[in-house]
Every structure is written in C-alpha cells, then in structure tokens.
C-alpha cells in the first residue's frame, strides 16, 4: 500500500500523449463543424496549474492540456446553470471517468441528451489533491480510470500501485462513531462554513434555478453563516444529492474551509447501495431510489 500517493511519480509522457490526442480531436471536431465549442482544460499562469477552458476556435485547440492539475469536473459547464455555454451550440467535452458519471446522471435527469454531445474521454491515472503533488483521495480508490461509452477515448493507464484507501478509512471512522460523536463531528466542521456556496456552485447536480436555501419569502433555511443555518444547509444539500451525487468530490475540493463534504455524500451513496442496490452515474436512469415509489419498497422503518 502506498500512503503518500504522488501524482509526480506518474510518467509525464502519459499526460503529454493524452494532451496531444485531446488537441488533435478538438481541432478535428471544431474544424469539421461537428461542434461549436470544446470544453476542456488549459494550463494556468502558476506552474503546474490548470483551469477549465471553453475553446471555439480550432487554432486555439492546442491550448488544451491534460495534467495532474486537471481536477475540475467539466460536466458543470453543460448544466443549465451555465446556459451561456450551452447556447453556443453542440458541445464537445473532455471527461475523466469520474466526470463521465456526472454526465450520465445528468442524462438520466433529462438535462442532457447523449446525441447532442461529443464526449472525449481521457484515461486518467489520478489527479492531484489539495497538497499539490499528492494524489486526490478520490483517485486512490478510483474504479473508473477508463471512461466507457465515449465518442473517443485518449490516453493510457500506467501500472498503478494499490493506494491506501483513505476515503474508505475515513468513512469507517465516521461509521464507528456514536450518534453523539457524529453530531459533534459535523457540528464542528459546519461551524467553519462561511456560506460561500462553492460546494453548490461546483456541483454538477446543483442546477436548480431557485435554490431553496436562497429563498427569503419565506426563508426556509437561515442564510446567515451561523450554526443552525449552516447545519440545515449541509443537510439539505446531502439529502438533495442522495442517489444523484456521482462522487466527483468537487464540493469538497472547492470548499475553502476544508469541510469534508464528500464524506457526507459517500455515506449517503453507501446507504443507497446497501438499501436499493443503486449506484449513481453508471447508467442513464430517469429516477433514483429517492425519487420514486414502488409497492415493494421496504417500509419496515415506519414504526
């Protein structure tokens, strides 16, 4: 097991090859007019950084990159929260395996049509976490290195060591807590929340035009950054995403206050798998288990 998983230890040539292939494909589809824009990543000013890019000009296709800094789940830019981008016309998008799960989920929710997208999959050995060269926690237990069902897939996978499953360990620690301990754990984390809503804004599934938590007539959840409202906001968020969250962990990555938000999502996902055998983002499915009623649903919890 490898506890100090480093993205640096992955051969840079793999990223360089994937980068070339993404550029070539982007150029091809833009030149052919198959798509109006390609949503990918480009390098940032700071060494080793990358950011989302929306390329419409084929001569700019060579600004696209794939590197360990390509952390963003670009599915965000295809949601109705980003109408301006969808208005450009037919889109191509570069996705890692984890990002693709969000696209599949969005198709299930009738937010996207498969035939309207050109999906460029990239085989991903892992991207970096907060500590620059360290591999993101989600990547250490990744089961979707190679995206399936794309229009084209680029890149190849190196032999990866077995990483320490930090996410599972964290979840096991949470589950071992008593309800009082768990309450205290979340209370402490949510007390740090500043209500910047980076978690919501980065989530591909938070595309509601009117978020319940922004309402003020009447107010449903206190909007001020105080313990009661913070707790309510994060519970609403977790419940609204249960069965829909495709595990990209963008909420947690975006949080400037280091709140382990994806832990909550993962707990919900685990419960849904155990109770309903449901895993979000693997097949286009209109309704998740929390959005439908069936006669044979387990009702033993009603006392």
């Amino acid at each position, binding site marked *: 097991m490898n506890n100090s998983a480093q993205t640096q230890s992955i051969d840079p040539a793999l990223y360089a090859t994937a980068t070339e292939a993404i550029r070539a494909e982007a150029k091809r589809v833009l030149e052919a007019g198959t798509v109006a824009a390609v949503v990918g990543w480009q390098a940032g000013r*700071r060494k080793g950084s990358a950011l989302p890019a929306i390329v419409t000009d084929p001569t700019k296709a060579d600004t696209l990159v794939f590197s360990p800094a390509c952390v963003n789940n670009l599915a965000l830019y295809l949601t109705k*929260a980003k109408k301006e981008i969808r208005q450009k016309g037919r889109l191509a998008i570069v996705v890692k395996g984890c990002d693709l799960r969000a696209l599949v989920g969005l198709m299930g929710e009738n937010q996207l049509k498969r035939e309207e997208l050109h999906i460029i999959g990239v085989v991903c050995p892992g991207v970096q976490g907060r500590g620059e060269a360290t591999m993101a926690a989600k990547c250490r237990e990744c089961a979707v290195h190679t995206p399936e069902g794309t229009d084209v897939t680029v890149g190849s996978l190196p032999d990866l060591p077995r990483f320490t499953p930090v996410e599972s360990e964290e979840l096991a620690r949470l589950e071992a807590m008593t309800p009082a301990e768990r309450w205290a754990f979340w209370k402490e984390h949510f007390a740090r929340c500043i*209500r*910047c*809503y*980076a978690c919501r804004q980065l989530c591909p599934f938070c595309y509601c035009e009117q978020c319940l938590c922004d309402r003020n007539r009447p*107010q449903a959840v206190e909007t001020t950054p105080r313990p009661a409202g913070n707790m309510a906001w994060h519970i609403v968020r977790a419940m609204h995403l249960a069965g829909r969250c495709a595990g990209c962990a963008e909420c947690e990555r*975006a949080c*400037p*206050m280091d709140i382990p938000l994806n832990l909550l999502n993962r707990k919900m996902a685990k419960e849904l798998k155990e109770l309903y055998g449901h895993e979000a983002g693997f097949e286009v499915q209109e309704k998740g288990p929390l959005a439908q009623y069936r006669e044979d649903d387990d009702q033993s919890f009603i006392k």
Partner: protein
Amino acid sequence: MAKSISEQNLRLLIDALVSEGKRVIGPRAAGTMTLYGPLTTGEELSPGELPRRSAKECFFPLCETILAYERDKEGVRVSDVDSCAIPETVLIGARPCDVAAAPVLDAVFSWDYRDEFFLERRKKTTIIGLACTKADDACFCTAVGLAPNDTKGSDLFLSPLKEGGYRCDVITEKGEALLAAHGPLFADAAAAEPLPLAEPTLGKLDLEKIRSWLDLHFEDPLWEEIAERCAGCGACAFLCPACHCFDIVDEGGEKKGVRRKSWDACGFGKFTNHASGHNPRDVQPSRYRNRIMHKFKYYVDKFGERLCTGCGRCIRACPVGIDIAAVLEEIDRKGARD
C-alpha cells in the same frame, strides 16, 4: 523610534493584553489551516502561515446582529446593539497585505453613511503588523504597490530578525501607547539583521494603465473569455481582505427576531437580482467584470485606492482556477496595445 522584542516577550505581551481583558486576535492553528482568531495565551500565536481568511473579520465579521425586535399586543419594540459591548482589541501578527486593507475599507464605511459597527471596531483596535518573509506563487503584493514590509494600517510593526525576536517600529500614537503601557517587554533596538523579506514573483503592474483600459472597456470580449468558467461562488470575495459587500436579513419569527448583516459576494447570481425579477448582471462574465472594475477602477475613481492588496487568497481558493494576477497582467498587456 525603533525597539525590539524577543519571541518570548511577544508571547508574554499577548498574555498581558489578555489579562487586561482585551480581545487579542492573531493567526492561530485551526485544524487543517491557520485562521485569525482570539488568542487566549501567547503560546497560541502561530504566525508562520498566511491565515486562510483575511483579517477583515476583525472589523467586519462574517455575521453580526445589528438590531433585535419583539412584537406583542403592545406593539413592536426594536432594540439597538450596544456598541459598548465591542471590546478593546489588539490584532497581532497580521501580514501587511491584510493590514493595508483596513484603511482602504475606512473610506467606504465612512464616506456617506457611517457604519458604526465597522468604525467602532476600528477605533477600538490596535494593529501590530508583521513583515512577511514567505511568499508563494499566488502572492503579488509588490505588483499592486505594496511591499512585504509595508506599514500601511499598522500601529506597531514587527520585523522578524535573523537571530530571533523582532524589531518593533512605532507607526502611530495608538502603537506608541500600547508600547508605553508594556515598556519592560521591549528593549532598545540593536543593530540586528532582519530576516530577508518575501519576494513575490509577479512583476510590477502599471495600475494606471489598467485603470485607463478599464475606463474604455466596459464591453469587451475579455470578460467572457475570463469569466465564462466562473462558477459563481463567493470564495474569492469571502477570503479577500478588501471585499466588503454585505447582505442584511431579518431572521426569527413573527414574535421576535434579529436583523443580521453578513458577507455577500458580487459573484453570486442573485446579488443584483431586483424585486421585479430583473437582474442587470444576468450572466457570470458581467459579475466578474464588476469584481475587477470595482477593485481597479470604481474604488480608485471614488477613493483613490485599489481594493486589492495582492494577498493571493482569491487565486489559491478559486475552484475554477481564475487567477486575478493573470487577469491584471493580461489587461496590462492590452493597455499597452490600445
């Protein structure tokens, strides 16, 4: 007049201030990060890392109650917050990029309506700034006209010395008073060598040229190019030492409740939403344009200062990698071409 203070005495100074009943705010370890927070002993001071959030919350808290109401058969009673409850405060170990923002904010909180909540806290706070010896690739204070040893906003200013301890410069009368009250903890400054200052890598920006370009380019394709990717969260504004927009909401019930003021951000989609439903900044690029215009043009036009101290927090925190220093470099280049 320069003095010096040993590391140990600096911590004793904090202990002494706390025992006098003052609120002492400084960088302290908070889980995975450093935050400005109330110090209960000198030992808690942890000046090594730039705190994740800026020091503005010393004067402009994340959330504060500004009035309370109660309603019964007799009618409605409204009670104000007692500003006497705001404690005498010492902000210690704050970086120049945080401290310099305080006098910049004074202008907006006092030019028309006087925001007593902010101003009372400012009046009751003494600031001990600390020279910065560590920059990362997001830092750009020197590019916006500040310096790692800028004393702007400080009452006393500490510069770490190679041999340990700090040189202490007196900047204002407030600082002088604090020093006089704790004289025995300070010594006369010897000719000690200071630690080398931080060296942000971004070159100097031509801020006047940037402002002139902004004057003429309210409409420009640049805004879409940069901000199409903006996700519309408030991380940049909330971590910024100079952003100061706030929201006011009444929270509570029909019988009683409070009016609260809390941080707001121009990146939020509903920030400019009118009651009519019309939203003049209806897309993200127009919101991001406002962020840049406000910091480098509107505030400069009105108050002669920029709303940016180059602390780099927005760059580090932006979940979609928007880099304000890169944006300014780009505008600087464009300014040269136009």
